[in-house]
């Protein structure tokens, strides 16, 4: 596999081996801990839904009640299903309501009672997992009926009004204008909410709240668009922040098609506790694997805080780690929308050639992954004319290096949330470039030993060096010391730490058991 860049196969294999070595202790950590959000996701699969009159979901009330009585370390499944038997009821949501009223006590049973509770929990969660399976089969059927987009990369457009009923016509208009994937940006505060809001929402800040009902409404609307347009229009949201496992679960239950799901983004950019993030990550990726959801990782973000040339290798390192964590959780290569971005300062000499080198490196390292190519943001100024040109070059690099998913850049990035006309101009830009040069990746083979090959090999070399250094200490200390995106994030700090517990000897999670059996 020397390919277009003449990469040394031994060095590539070494990079993967080092990523595995750096990632494995983190997987062990994830396998031996649980979080409140993982447990809430289990309850959602078991059918708990709705919220109390204050808008706090019943899954939160139920997990809080169990934790107050027996702690988090046993997992909530057994105490909950044990209490169901004792209370003589079958509806778990009803149990949550009783628990919130303080009329139920939870125990961690042993012996025969524990076995019975495990069996009941597994049966109940199995119903939820089968619903996810049916959603996946439904997607396969619809893709077969309506078809995939005619071209690669798929065109990915963002909608963000704050009001789901405004988002819907905008998303449908975007699909008609050529979008293959619609992403509904979340309200800025949501990643740090330790619960998932309920119902259809009409207010948000710079985005729309992710809720199960909003997921359902938008998916149904895009099904209508898919029928109208004769191609399956995909829907994206975010499995990130403190409720990552629940978001993944709701996405599976409502047939979302892609989810942003990065292994380190929450740690670095939202100051969420590293252990909380890695535990939540693993569970959410197992759900995505089962649901046939394509994950999008967030390497583009490193380049918005760090220099895109000096730190290009941190993107490669993160991609390799994301790949390892994804494979470990059961995701297939076609589900890995590994991220990277066009963020080199346009004033740097040869910036386009550097971009080509970096983009092609990702393409060659991960030949079967639908790479997600992210547009310039850091060097977009209020000069919309220059911005439009920069976006054109971004689109060109995407076409020349065979990217899988192209997030459409807006010339008004950093100026306003996109106007109707901004989106139209941006899509026109993409269509022109893909129409004029869509097959250029077939002809584009950088000169042997030339600038692009040298640069790509150098970035890979730096990535291997960094992975060696991480291997000597550990991934957690690398994160603590600010290796990625400059942020320093120690493992004993950050938001959401209180919701993490080490497994007790009798920890039981029926969802993990079912997902890992597959």
């Amino acid at each position, binding site marked *: 596999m020397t390919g277009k860049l003449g990469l040394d196969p031994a060095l590539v294999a070494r990079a993967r081996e080092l990523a595995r070595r750096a990632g494995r202790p983190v997987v062990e950590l994830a396998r031996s801990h649980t979080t409140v959000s993982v447990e809430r996701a289990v309850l959602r699969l078991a059918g708990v839904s709705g919220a109390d009159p204050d808008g706090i979901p019943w899954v939160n009330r139920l997990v809080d009640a169990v934790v107050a009585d027996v702690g988090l370390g046993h997992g909530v499944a057994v105490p909950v299903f044990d209490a169901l038997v004792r209370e003589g009821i079958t509806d778990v949501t009803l149990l949550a309501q009783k628990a919130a009223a303080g009329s139920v006590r939870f125990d961690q049973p042993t012996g025969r009672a524990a076995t019975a509770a495990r069996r009941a929990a597994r049966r109940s969660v199995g119903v939820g997992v089968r619903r996810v399976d049916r959603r996946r089969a439904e997607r396969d059927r619809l893709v077969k009926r309506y078809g995939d987009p005619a071209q690669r990369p798929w065109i990915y457009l963002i909608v963000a009004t704050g009001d789901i009923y405004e988002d819907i016509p905008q998303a449908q208009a975007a699909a*008609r204008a050529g979008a293959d994937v619609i992403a509904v940006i979340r309200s800025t505060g949501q990643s740090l909410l330790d619960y998932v809001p309920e119902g259809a929402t009409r207010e948000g800040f710079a985005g729309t709240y992710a809720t199960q009902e909003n997921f359902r409404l938008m998916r149904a609307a895009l099904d209508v668009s898919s029928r109208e347009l004769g191609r399956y229009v995909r829907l994206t949201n975010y499995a990130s922040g403190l409720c990552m496992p629940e978001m993944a679960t709701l996405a599976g239950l409502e047939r979302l098609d892609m989810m942003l799901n990065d292994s380190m983004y929450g740690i670095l950019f939202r100051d969420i506790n590293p252990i909380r993030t890695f535990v939540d990550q693993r569970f959410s990726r197992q759900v995505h694997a089962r649901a046939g959801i394509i994950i999008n990782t967030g390497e583009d973000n490193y380049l918005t805080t760090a220099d895109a040339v000096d730190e290009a290798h941190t993107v490669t390192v993160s991609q390799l780690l994301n790949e390892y964590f994804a494979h470990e959780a059961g995701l297939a290569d076609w589900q890995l929308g590994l991220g990277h971005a066009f963020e080199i300062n346009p004033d740097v000499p040869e910036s386009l050639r550097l971009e080509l080198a970096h983009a092609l490196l990702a393409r060659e390292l991960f030949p079967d992954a639908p790479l997600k190519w992210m547009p310039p943001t850091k060097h977009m100024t209020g000069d919309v004319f220059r911005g439009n040109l920069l976006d054109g070059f971004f689109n060109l690099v995407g076409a020349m290096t065979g990217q899988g998913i192209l997030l459409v850049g807006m010339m008004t990035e950093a100026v306003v949330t996109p106007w*109707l006309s901004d989106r139209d101009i941006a899509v026109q830009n993409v269509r022109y470039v893909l129409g004029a040069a869509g097959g250029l990746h077939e002809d584009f083979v950088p000169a042997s030993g030339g600038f692009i090959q040298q640069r790509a090999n150098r970035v890979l070399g730096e990535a291997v060096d960094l992975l060696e250094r991480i291997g000597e200490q550990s991934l957690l200390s690398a994160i603590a010391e600010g290796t990625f995106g400059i942020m320093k994030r120690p493992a004993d700090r950050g938001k959401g730490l209180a919701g993490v517990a080490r497994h007790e000897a009798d920890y039981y999670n029926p969802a993990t058991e079912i997902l890992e059996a597959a």
Partner: protein
Amino acid sequence: MSTVERKIVRPYGDTTGDGMVQVSFTLPVPHDKRAEGAAVQLANKMGMDPAMLVHAKQMGDGFTFFVVYGRVNHLVDLAAVQVVERDFPLLGAKEVNAVVKQKLRRKLSVVGACIGTDAHTVGIDAILNVKGIAGEKGLEYYRELKVTNLGAQVSVPELVEAARQERADAVLVSQVVTQRDAHLHNTREMSAAFREALPAGKRPLLIVGGPRFDETMTGELGVDRIFGRGTTPGEVASYLVHALITNKRAK
């Protein structure tokens, strides 16, 4: 405010005084003759006469995008322009460090954050991180400044507490999200909290920055200084030295 000699100018296309401008906008109507007439009417009302409609394109079902070139009849009086001019000397990092060391005789403590739901740390990071922006190093690079960057989505009470703990001489807040005027509400909430929590003499210098602030609104927002788009770390450092040491206000 500075005074400029009275001078009238008009926009410049390719000849002095031609008054030519170019605008683009969308009207919620399908593209037809009437739509083009409507676009010209709007341009006329904006003071463009004659207005040349050079591009019209329908988007979706009921919208049309227009580009219009034309001559505006408005005059600009430079003497009547009101802006906040830099009223402090620009110092290099060495000079900043020297002044702090000689006159303050301790490190100057700066606490920075993005408050409210705003998660865009690009601005505060550009000013505070060693990395800086456009080749200019951030405040962390200044030996005599002690910088605490709290990062994103910091609540106002957390910020006040951190400022107290760090004995902050100055608090820097960055706000990018402007939906529903969030940047203005957050800033007012922040300045009110500091007024409530600390007596006048103990209150740190309050500085807010972001691309969408009006730099003349300091009084209205209850802050000491507003920095807009394009501000560099050096400007902020120079202002800190000016406001806290060389031209210390009577607080």
